[in-house]
Protein backbone atom coordinates (compact mmCIF):
# COMPACT_ATOMS: atom_id res chain seq x y z
CA UNK A 1 0.00 0.00 0.00
CA UNK A 2 2.60 2.50 1.11
CA UNK A 3 4.98 1.37 -1.53
CA UNK A 4 2.51 1.77 -4.38
CA UNK A 5 1.19 5.17 -3.29
CA UNK A 6 4.04 7.23 -4.79
CA UNK A 7 3.61 5.39 -8.09
CA UNK A 8 -0.12 6.04 -8.01
CA UNK A 9 0.48 9.74 -7.35
CA UNK A 10 3.09 9.88 -10.06
CA UNK A 11 0.70 8.16 -12.42
CA UNK A 12 -2.09 10.55 -11.57
CA UNK A 13 0.20 13.54 -12.03
CA UNK A 14 1.37 12.21 -15.37
CA UNK A 15 -2.25 11.72 -16.38
CA UNK A 16 -3.19 15.24 -15.37
CA UNK A 17 -0.14 16.67 -17.06
CA UNK A 18 -0.90 14.65 -20.16
CA UNK A 19 -4.46 15.91 -20.37
CA UNK A 20 -3.30 19.47 -19.74
CA UNK A 21 -0.78 19.14 -22.53
CA UNK A 22 -3.49 17.79 -24.79
CA UNK A 23 -5.65 20.79 -24.03
CA UNK A 24 -2.76 23.14 -24.65
CA UNK A 25 -2.61 21.94 -28.26
CA UNK A 26 -4.91 22.58 -31.25
CA UNK A 27 -8.14 22.61 -29.30
CA UNK A 28 -7.18 25.73 -27.31
CA UNK A 29 -7.28 27.75 -30.51
CA UNK A 30 -10.59 26.38 -31.71
CA UNK A 31 -13.98 27.80 -30.78
CA UNK A 32 -17.33 26.33 -31.76
CA UNK A 33 -20.58 28.13 -32.61
CA UNK A 34 -23.99 27.31 -34.13
CA UNK A 35 -23.74 23.76 -32.80
CA UNK A 36 -26.94 21.79 -33.37
CA UNK A 37 -28.31 18.32 -33.94
CA UNK A 38 -31.18 17.44 -36.24
CA UNK A 39 -33.18 14.96 -34.18
CA UNK A 40 -34.96 12.23 -36.12
CA UNK A 41 -37.64 9.91 -34.75
CA UNK A 42 -36.94 6.55 -33.15
CA UNK A 43 -33.46 5.11 -33.35
CA UNK A 44 -32.56 6.77 -36.66
CA UNK A 45 -29.09 8.30 -36.99
CA UNK A 46 -28.92 12.07 -36.57
CA UNK A 47 -26.72 14.73 -38.20
CA UNK A 48 -24.77 17.21 -36.08
CA UNK A 49 -23.52 20.55 -37.35
CA UNK A 50 -21.15 23.23 -36.06
CA UNK A 51 -19.01 26.13 -37.17
CA UNK A 52 -15.38 25.80 -36.01
CA UNK A 53 -13.08 28.77 -35.82
CA UNK A 54 -9.32 28.42 -35.46
CA UNK A 55 -7.55 31.48 -34.05
CA UNK A 56 -4.19 29.77 -34.01
CA UNK A 57 -1.36 30.16 -36.48
CA UNK A 58 -1.37 26.47 -37.46
CA UNK A 59 -4.10 24.39 -39.11
CA UNK A 60 -5.98 22.00 -36.83
CA UNK A 61 -7.40 18.70 -38.04
CA UNK A 62 -10.72 17.42 -36.69
CA UNK A 63 -10.55 13.62 -36.73
CA UNK A 64 -13.54 12.45 -34.74
CA UNK A 65 -16.05 12.96 -31.99
CA UNK A 66 -17.71 11.13 -29.14
CA UNK A 67 -20.74 11.75 -26.99
CA UNK A 68 -22.13 10.11 -23.86
CA UNK A 69 -25.58 10.40 -25.51
CA UNK A 70 -24.67 8.29 -28.56
CA UNK A 71 -22.96 4.96 -29.12
CA UNK A 72 -21.06 6.24 -32.10
CA UNK A 73 -20.20 9.53 -33.85
CA UNK A 74 -18.59 9.62 -37.28
CA UNK A 75 -17.28 12.38 -39.47
CA UNK A 76 -19.05 12.27 -42.84
CA UNK A 77 -19.45 14.26 -46.00
CA UNK A 78 -22.51 14.41 -48.24
CA UNK A 79 -21.99 15.19 -51.88
CA UNK A 80 -24.34 15.60 -54.81
CA UNK A 81 -22.15 15.02 -57.85
CA UNK A 82 -24.00 13.95 -60.99
CA UNK A 83 -27.41 14.45 -59.38
CA UNK A 84 -26.75 11.59 -56.92
CA UNK A 85 -26.71 12.07 -53.15
CA UNK A 86 -23.82 10.16 -51.65
CA UNK A 87 -22.32 9.94 -48.17
CA UNK A 88 -18.67 9.20 -47.50
CA UNK A 89 -16.51 8.83 -44.40
CA UNK A 90 -14.01 11.58 -43.74
CA UNK A 91 -10.73 10.79 -41.93
CA UNK A 92 -9.86 14.36 -41.08
CA UNK A 93 -11.26 17.81 -41.67
CA UNK A 94 -8.84 20.74 -41.58
CA UNK A 95 -9.69 24.01 -39.90
CA UNK A 96 -7.24 26.44 -41.53
CA UNK A 97 -5.03 28.76 -39.47
CA UNK A 98 -6.97 31.93 -38.64
CA UNK A 99 -9.93 30.49 -40.49
CA UNK A 100 -13.17 28.59 -40.15
CA UNK A 101 -14.55 25.23 -41.19
CA UNK A 102 -18.29 24.68 -41.39
CA UNK A 103 -20.16 21.46 -40.80
CA UNK A 104 -23.56 22.16 -42.35
CA UNK A 105 -26.48 20.21 -43.88
CA UNK A 106 -25.64 18.87 -47.32
CA UNK A 107 -21.88 18.88 -46.64
CA UNK A 108 -19.62 17.90 -43.75
CA UNK A 109 -21.45 16.62 -40.70
CA UNK A 110 -21.14 14.32 -37.72
CA UNK A 111 -23.34 11.26 -38.00
CA UNK A 112 -24.61 10.27 -34.55
CA UNK A 113 -25.78 6.69 -34.11
CA UNK A 114 -27.24 4.48 -31.39
CA UNK A 115 -28.77 7.14 -29.14
CA UNK A 116 -28.63 5.86 -25.55
CA UNK A 117 -32.12 7.30 -25.00
CA UNK A 118 -34.39 9.45 -27.18
CA UNK A 119 -33.03 12.99 -27.50
CA UNK A 120 -35.75 15.66 -27.43
CA UNK A 121 -35.67 18.96 -29.33
CA UNK A 122 -34.53 21.74 -27.00
CA UNK A 123 -32.09 19.50 -25.10
CA UNK A 124 -28.40 20.29 -24.97
CA UNK A 125 -26.15 17.37 -25.88
CA UNK A 126 -22.45 17.31 -25.06
CA UNK A 127 -20.23 16.16 -27.96
CA UNK A 128 -16.47 16.09 -27.52
CA UNK A 129 -14.57 16.91 -30.69
CA UNK A 130 -11.24 15.12 -31.17
CA UNK A 131 -8.30 16.60 -33.02
CA UNK A 132 -5.33 14.87 -34.63
CA UNK A 133 -2.87 16.04 -31.97
CA UNK A 134 -4.94 14.30 -29.32
CA UNK A 135 -6.50 17.47 -27.96
CA UNK A 136 -10.24 17.60 -27.41
CA UNK A 137 -12.96 20.24 -27.30
CA UNK A 138 -16.26 19.61 -25.49
CA UNK A 139 -19.16 21.40 -27.21
CA UNK A 140 -22.82 21.62 -26.22
CA UNK A 141 -25.07 21.01 -29.21
CA UNK A 142 -28.71 22.13 -29.17
CA UNK A 143 -31.16 19.45 -30.32
CA UNK A 144 -33.51 20.80 -33.00
CA UNK A 145 -36.63 19.28 -34.60
CA UNK A 146 -36.33 17.21 -37.78
CA UNK A 147 -37.60 20.01 -40.02
CA UNK A 148 -35.27 22.72 -38.67
CA UNK A 149 -32.90 24.38 -41.13
CA UNK A 150 -30.34 25.60 -38.60
CA UNK A 151 -29.50 26.11 -34.94
CA UNK A 152 -32.36 28.59 -34.64
CA UNK A 153 -35.50 29.61 -36.49
Amino acid at each position, binding site marked *: MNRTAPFLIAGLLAGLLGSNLAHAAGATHVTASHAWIRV*LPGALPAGAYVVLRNDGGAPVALTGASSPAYGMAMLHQSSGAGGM*SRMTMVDALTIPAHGTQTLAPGGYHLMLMDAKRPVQPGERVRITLQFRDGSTLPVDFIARPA*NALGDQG
Partner: protein
Amino acid sequence: MKFPRLLRLALLLLPLAGALLLSACHRDTLPFKLTDISGHMPDLAFQLTDDHGKAVSAADYRGKVLLLYFGYTHCPDVCPLTLAQLHVALQKLGQPGDDVRILFVSVDPARDTPAVLHAYVNAFDKRAVGLTGSPRAIEALSKRYRSAFTREPSGKDGNYEVTHSSAIYVFDRDGRARVLSTPGTPQADLVHDLQLLLTSGASA
Protein backbone atom coordinates in the same frame (compact mmCIF):
# COMPACT_ATOMS: atom_id res chain seq x y z
CA MET B 1 -81.60 43.80 -86.86
CA LYS B 2 -79.37 41.54 -88.83
CA PHE B 3 -75.81 40.62 -87.79
CA PRO B 4 -73.44 40.59 -90.70
CA ARG B 5 -72.73 36.97 -91.56
CA LEU B 6 -69.03 37.18 -90.80
CA LEU B 7 -69.59 38.67 -87.35
CA ARG B 8 -72.07 35.91 -86.50
CA LEU B 9 -69.52 33.30 -87.46
CA ALA B 10 -66.85 35.02 -85.40
CA LEU B 11 -69.14 35.14 -82.35
CA LEU B 12 -69.83 31.44 -82.72
CA LEU B 13 -66.17 30.55 -82.99
CA LEU B 14 -64.98 32.79 -80.17
CA PRO B 15 -65.74 30.43 -77.25
CA LEU B 16 -64.17 27.58 -79.14
CA ALA B 17 -60.99 29.56 -79.81
CA GLY B 18 -60.93 30.61 -76.14
CA ALA B 19 -61.25 27.04 -74.96
CA LEU B 20 -58.45 25.94 -77.25
CA LEU B 21 -56.20 28.74 -76.03
CA LEU B 22 -56.91 27.94 -72.37
CA SER B 23 -56.20 24.26 -72.72
CA ALA B 24 -52.99 25.02 -74.59
CA CYS B 25 -51.92 27.32 -71.75
CA HIS B 26 -52.81 24.77 -69.14
CA ARG B 27 -51.06 21.94 -70.86
CA ASP B 28 -47.85 23.39 -72.16
CA THR B 29 -47.14 27.02 -71.55
CA LEU B 30 -47.05 27.67 -67.82
CA PRO B 31 -44.14 30.07 -67.18
CA PHE B 32 -42.17 27.73 -64.91
CA LYS B 33 -38.92 28.82 -63.29
CA LEU B 34 -37.63 25.30 -62.66
CA THR B 35 -36.65 22.83 -65.39
CA ASP B 36 -39.83 22.20 -67.40
CA ILE B 37 -40.25 18.46 -68.04
CA SER B 38 -43.85 18.66 -69.32
CA GLY B 39 -44.27 16.02 -71.99
CA HIS B 40 -40.75 14.64 -71.43
CA MET B 41 -41.48 12.33 -68.50
CA PRO B 42 -44.34 9.82 -68.17
CA ASP B 43 -47.41 10.43 -66.02
CA LEU B 44 -47.16 9.23 -62.43
CA ALA B 45 -47.88 5.51 -62.01
CA PHE B 46 -46.99 3.14 -59.16
CA GLN B 47 -48.27 0.36 -56.91
CA LEU B 48 -46.79 0.84 -53.44
CA THR B 49 -47.68 0.76 -49.73
CA ASP B 50 -48.21 3.99 -47.80
CA ASP B 51 -47.00 4.75 -44.27
CA HIS B 52 -50.29 3.45 -42.84
CA GLY B 53 -49.61 0.07 -44.46
CA LYS B 54 -52.28 0.60 -47.12
CA ALA B 55 -51.82 -0.40 -50.78
CA VAL B 56 -51.88 2.77 -52.87
CA SER B 57 -51.47 3.80 -56.50
CA ALA B 58 -50.92 7.14 -58.25
CA ALA B 59 -54.70 7.46 -58.73
CA ASP B 60 -55.09 7.90 -54.95
CA TYR B 61 -53.28 11.24 -55.19
CA ARG B 62 -55.12 12.71 -58.20
CA GLY B 63 -56.26 16.25 -57.51
CA LYS B 64 -53.13 17.02 -55.47
CA VAL B 65 -49.97 18.70 -56.68
CA LEU B 66 -47.23 16.18 -55.93
CA LEU B 67 -43.54 16.36 -55.00
CA LEU B 68 -41.88 12.99 -55.62
CA TYR B 69 -38.56 12.36 -53.87
CA PHE B 70 -36.54 9.17 -53.42
CA GLY B 71 -34.67 8.70 -50.13
CA TYR B 72 -34.35 6.58 -46.99
CA THR B 73 -34.81 7.16 -43.29
CA HIS B 74 -31.27 6.15 -42.23
CA CYS B 75 -29.95 9.04 -44.32
CA PRO B 76 -29.07 11.57 -41.60
CA ASP B 77 -28.10 14.56 -43.71
CA VAL B 78 -29.35 15.12 -47.27
CA CYS B 79 -32.81 13.50 -47.01
CA PRO B 80 -33.78 15.44 -43.86
CA LEU B 81 -32.39 18.64 -45.40
CA THR B 82 -34.47 18.12 -48.55
CA LEU B 83 -37.63 17.28 -46.60
CA ALA B 84 -37.09 20.27 -44.28
CA GLN B 85 -36.71 22.53 -47.33
CA LEU B 86 -39.88 21.12 -48.88
CA HIS B 87 -41.69 21.71 -45.58
CA VAL B 88 -40.61 25.35 -45.58
CA ALA B 89 -41.70 25.74 -49.23
CA LEU B 90 -45.16 24.37 -48.38
CA GLN B 91 -45.42 26.71 -45.39
CA LYS B 92 -44.74 29.64 -47.74
CA LEU B 93 -47.71 28.60 -49.90
CA GLY B 94 -50.09 29.13 -46.97
CA GLN B 95 -53.50 27.48 -47.08
CA PRO B 96 -53.26 26.42 -50.78
CA GLY B 97 -50.21 24.36 -49.75
CA ASP B 98 -52.62 21.88 -48.17
CA ASP B 99 -53.35 20.69 -51.72
CA VAL B 100 -49.74 19.51 -52.07
CA ARG B 101 -48.41 16.10 -51.04
CA ILE B 102 -44.77 15.16 -50.61
CA LEU B 103 -44.33 11.54 -51.74
CA PHE B 104 -41.19 10.22 -50.04
CA VAL B 105 -40.38 6.92 -51.75
CA SER B 106 -38.00 4.69 -49.78
CA VAL B 107 -35.03 3.25 -51.67
CA ASP B 108 -34.34 1.13 -48.56
CA PRO B 109 -37.46 -1.03 -48.16
CA ALA B 110 -35.52 -3.55 -46.02
CA ARG B 111 -35.32 -1.05 -43.13
CA ASP B 112 -38.13 1.36 -44.00
CA THR B 113 -41.29 -0.28 -42.74
CA PRO B 114 -44.53 1.72 -42.96
CA ALA B 115 -44.27 2.46 -39.20
CA VAL B 116 -40.70 3.80 -39.45
CA LEU B 117 -41.68 5.85 -42.49
CA HIS B 118 -44.78 7.20 -40.75
CA ALA B 119 -42.84 8.61 -37.81
CA TYR B 120 -40.15 9.92 -40.15
CA VAL B 121 -42.25 11.81 -42.71
CA ASN B 122 -44.56 13.26 -40.06
CA ALA B 123 -41.58 14.74 -38.24
CA PHE B 124 -41.16 16.99 -41.30
CA ASP B 125 -44.64 17.76 -42.56
CA LYS B 126 -48.16 16.40 -42.08
CA ARG B 127 -48.59 16.59 -45.87
CA ALA B 128 -45.75 14.16 -46.45
CA VAL B 129 -46.52 10.54 -47.32
CA GLY B 130 -44.01 7.73 -46.92
CA LEU B 131 -44.14 5.08 -49.63
CA THR B 132 -42.46 1.69 -49.65
CA GLY B 133 -43.01 -1.60 -51.40
CA SER B 134 -41.30 -4.51 -53.09
CA PRO B 135 -37.79 -3.80 -54.41
CA ARG B 136 -39.17 -4.46 -57.89
CA ALA B 137 -42.01 -1.91 -57.53
CA ILE B 138 -39.64 0.74 -56.17
CA GLU B 139 -37.12 0.12 -58.92
CA ALA B 140 -39.88 0.35 -61.54
CA LEU B 141 -40.91 3.80 -60.26
CA SER B 142 -37.30 4.93 -60.04
CA LYS B 143 -36.56 3.79 -63.60
CA ARG B 144 -39.75 5.42 -64.88
CA TYR B 145 -38.19 8.79 -63.98
CA ARG B 146 -34.64 7.83 -65.02
CA SER B 147 -33.65 7.96 -61.38
CA ALA B 148 -31.26 5.50 -59.74
CA PHE B 149 -30.14 4.20 -56.37
CA THR B 150 -27.40 1.87 -55.14
CA ARG B 151 -27.00 0.19 -51.79
CA GLU B 152 -23.44 0.70 -50.57
CA PRO B 153 -21.51 -2.13 -48.81
CA SER B 154 -22.34 -2.60 -45.12
CA GLY B 155 -19.93 -1.40 -42.45
CA LYS B 156 -18.69 -3.66 -39.67
CA ASP B 157 -21.69 -2.67 -37.56
CA GLY B 158 -24.05 -3.83 -40.32
CA ASN B 159 -25.09 -0.28 -41.09
CA TYR B 160 -25.15 0.81 -44.73
CA GLU B 161 -25.84 3.89 -46.85
CA VAL B 162 -27.84 4.15 -50.05
CA THR B 163 -26.62 6.44 -52.81
CA HIS B 164 -29.67 7.89 -54.53
CA SER B 165 -30.89 10.52 -56.96
CA SER B 166 -31.34 13.97 -55.42
CA ALA B 167 -34.07 15.10 -57.86
CA ILE B 168 -37.54 16.21 -56.83
CA TYR B 169 -40.19 15.57 -59.51
CA VAL B 170 -43.21 17.84 -59.45
CA PHE B 171 -46.55 16.59 -60.80
CA ASP B 172 -49.73 18.54 -61.51
CA ARG B 173 -53.17 17.64 -60.16
CA ASP B 174 -53.67 15.25 -63.08
CA GLY B 175 -50.51 13.27 -62.33
CA ARG B 176 -48.54 14.76 -65.21
CA ALA B 177 -44.81 15.39 -64.71
CA ARG B 178 -44.26 19.16 -64.97
CA VAL B 179 -40.99 20.38 -63.42
CA LEU B 180 -37.78 19.03 -61.93
CA SER B 181 -36.24 20.53 -58.79
CA THR B 182 -33.03 19.72 -56.94
CA PRO B 183 -31.95 20.56 -53.39
CA GLY B 184 -29.73 23.30 -54.83
CA THR B 185 -32.38 25.24 -56.75
CA PRO B 186 -33.66 28.49 -55.20
CA GLN B 187 -36.63 27.86 -52.94
CA ALA B 188 -38.50 30.87 -54.37
CA ASP B 189 -38.51 29.15 -57.78
CA LEU B 190 -40.10 26.02 -56.35
CA VAL B 191 -42.71 28.07 -54.46
CA HIS B 192 -43.44 30.02 -57.67
CA ASP B 193 -43.97 26.89 -59.74
CA LEU B 194 -46.09 25.20 -57.08
CA GLN B 195 -48.31 28.30 -57.00
CA LEU B 196 -48.69 28.09 -60.78
CA LEU B 197 -49.68 24.43 -60.59
CA LEU B 198 -52.07 25.01 -57.69
CA THR B 199 -53.90 27.84 -59.48
CA SER B 200 -53.95 26.16 -62.89
CA GLY B 201 -56.68 23.94 -61.43
CA ALA B 202 -57.68 20.33 -61.78
CA SER B 203 -58.94 20.03 -65.31
CA ALA B 204 -58.81 17.26 -67.91
